[in-house]
């Protein structure tokens, strides 16, 4: 299995775990809140979620590359070539499309009158789905080919 596949799998798993943990934390936190405080609380949660994803992605890459380097490989010296950029392009495209479609669903739910809470929950899932879609594309790209 390629290093970049390992990074993708580790990132997807850690991000999923981070989502679950923060989801549970947020649910308890926002239960008694209403009005403008609710919007502020959701803003904080979504920021924590996204920043957490970015940090975990970086840590996953550092971990895998460090292990690989210690095993005698190139680690971070491994270059990025046209195939990496090709797969990255597809992954970015997947992220954009999943994010757009999921966001559209969130807007539809809001337009249907299901309220801000539902909208923000849908937004959180939008971020998760787009992130997972991106990592799955990386895995398919490197292991199977696109």
């Amino acid at each position, binding site marked *: 299995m390629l290093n970049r596949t390992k990074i993708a799998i580790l990132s997807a798993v850690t991000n999923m775990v981070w989502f679950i943990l923060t989801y549970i934390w947020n649910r308890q936190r926002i239960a008694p809140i209403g009005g403008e405080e609710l919007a502020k609380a959701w803003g904080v949660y979504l920021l924590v979620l996204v920043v957490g994803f970015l940090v975990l992605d970086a840590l996953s890459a550092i971990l895998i590359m460090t292990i690989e380097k210690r095993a005698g490989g190139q680690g971070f010296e*491994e270059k990025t*070539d*046209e*195939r990496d950029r090709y797969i990255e392009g597809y992954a970015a495209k997947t992220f954009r499309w999943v994010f757009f479609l999921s966001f559209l669903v969130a807007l539809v739910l809001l337009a249907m009158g299901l309220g801000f809470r539902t909208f923000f929950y849908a937004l959180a899932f939008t971020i998760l789905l787009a992130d997972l879609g991106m990592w799955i594309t990386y895995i*398919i790209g*490197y292991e*199977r*080919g696109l």
Partner: protein
Amino acid sequence: MMTKKTRISNNIRTLRFMANEMTQQQLADLVGVTRQTILAVENGKYSPSLELAFAIARVFGKTLEEVFSYDEE
């Protein structure tokens, strides 16, 4: 995971063997890509860019058609 084969096949592995058993890493270094990319090209998992295809053919002193072929089916 089942490999998605491209329509472009090649005989890079044979040419490497005939070129003093050149390794994938050596070929990768000569054309400026990673060993994994050469592996993916050889296994039909990745279609190289025109630039890369020409670079590979040049390493072996062959034309593009002598290294790569397009499967019509």
